[in-house]
């Protein structure tokens, strides 16, 4: 279970990126974090594993306050938190297998990682994860030889290789097409459910968030302005988060897109026959 208490972050000489965020994520919950660009979504999830140092507040994962940890303890704590990135953030010149195994870096001594001599259990687990995300045959390919959707699958496998207690997901679908986006979101939510893994997902695509998230938190200018079920995300709530806009037009646009996708699917099937 993750509990954030009065978390704030201000960058030198700027407006506060986060002000007094208090949030509890129970075990197994998939939480979508929505909000306009610059609302502090990315800062919030990076404060949790301290890729960004929070200014004040507590980040409690289980019994431990991550905000207070020293260097070594922080490394140990980071192992418990898997992270999935917007631009996949794979090491492009390494193989898929090395990328997945890099999820074990916090567990193995330097010589093992340097010589790529990981314990048998880690290697076996890496294969199992690659099989789970459907990339068994790509283990020896270089990461830069994969398509966007495949790269994000490797990113997911890497995060899971850490055997995390929490998943932080930063705009997982921002660089993907609508169909692949849905597949990736489905994969993430399935995996979280399989493992009872809580996740915080930054997502800018509101319809996608409503489709896949169990709970939605809206962030505006560093403050939580909405917290509820996807069904409670009404037009008024969206206006509070994003400001005035014709929300029905956006939903209609999404319906059009789904329609176009279905149409493309039908045509593909027609060709296949």
């Amino acid at each position: 279970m993750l509990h954030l208490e009065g978390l704030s972050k201000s960058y030198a000489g700027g407006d506060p990126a986060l002000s007094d965020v208090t949030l509890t994520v129970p075990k197994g919950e998939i939480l979508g974090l929505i909000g306009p660009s610059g609302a502090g979504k990315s800062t919030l999830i990076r404060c949790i594993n301290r890729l960004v140092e929070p200014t004040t507040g507590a980040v409690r994962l289980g019994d431990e306050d991550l905000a207070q940890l020293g260097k070594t303890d922080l490394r140990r704590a980071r192992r418990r938190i898997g992270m999935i990135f917007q631009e996949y953030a794979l090491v492009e010149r390494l193989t898929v297998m090395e990328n997945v195994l890099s999820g074990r870096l916090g567990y193995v001594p330097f010589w093992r990682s340097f010589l790529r001599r990981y314990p048998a259990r880690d290697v076996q687990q890496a294969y199992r994860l690659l099989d789970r995300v459907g990339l068994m045959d790509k283990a020896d390919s270089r990461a830069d030889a994969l398509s966007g959707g495949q790269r994000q699958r490797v990113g997911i496998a890497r995060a899971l290789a850490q055997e995390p207690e929490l998943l932080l997901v930063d705009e997982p679908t921002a660089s993907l097409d609508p169909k692949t986006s849905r597949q990736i979101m489905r994969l993430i939510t399935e995996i979280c459910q399989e493992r009872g893994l809580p996740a915080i997902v930054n997502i800018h695509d509101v319809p996608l968030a409503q489709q896949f998230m169990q709970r939605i938190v809206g962030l505006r200018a560093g403050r939580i302005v909405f917290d509820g079920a996807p069904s409670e995300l009404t037009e008024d709530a969206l206006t509070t988060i994003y400001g005035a806009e014709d929300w029905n037009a956006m939903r209609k646009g999404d319906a059009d897109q789904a329609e176009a996708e279905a149409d493309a699917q039908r045509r593909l099937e027609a060709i296949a026959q």
Partner: protein
Amino acid sequence: MSTSYPTTWRRPPQLIKSARLRYAIQFAIALYLAVAIGTLEVDWARVAAGLERGGRFAAGFLQPDFVSRWDDISRGLVESLTMTLTSTVVGVLLSVPVGIGAASNIAPAPIYFVCRSIIAVSRALQEIIIAIFLVAMFGFGPFAGFLTLSFATIGFLAKLLADDIEEIEPGQVEAVRSTGASWWQMVNYSVQPQVMPRLIGLSLYRLDINFRESAVIGIVGAGGIGATLNTAIDRYEYDSAGAILLLIIAIVMVAEYGSSYLRKFLQ
């Protein structure tokens, strides 16, 4: 309705806006050039003598003599090639830690300043100056040359490596850090894969620079083919000197093409 737009356009002056100042500066430059040329003293008799000597040199060049001094030449070449290879290997091995330390995005501030200072000193001193100094310390011969080239390699390679590390993709570093990796693991998994092809390319490039430099620093006593060349010219053996120059040119060209081919192959 018909607005008449201009049909001509000239680029407005970018640097000095005032036309008068512009002409004044142009005039001043021309005046200084004329005065400077006027103060040159040219001793035409010496030019003539030099031309004659140059002619003899060119004649020697056209009839290179590889044979009569072959022992000296081959010894010089082997010395130079040994110096080149050993100094490149040692230089690269020293440059890597210095280069990593001099990258502001991964090194802590105190280490950064130390490493940048090492690079600055190495780059500030030209090879010949270091060679003169080291020859005075360690005596004539290739050992001084080896030290000179190793030191110069650090300035070149560590700087370019550090600059390259500073431009790597930060997302990949962030991702590896988020797994709980230590600093060494982070360097090994996210920095090294991104800079390795360029590091290999630069090392090969430095190998052929070091060969060329080994010929130059030999003239100040640091051994190698440069020393042989200097001796040949001192003895007025222009045919042997011509042979040495041709060999240097040939080896530099082979090294150049070889290393550019290898770099292309690696990237």
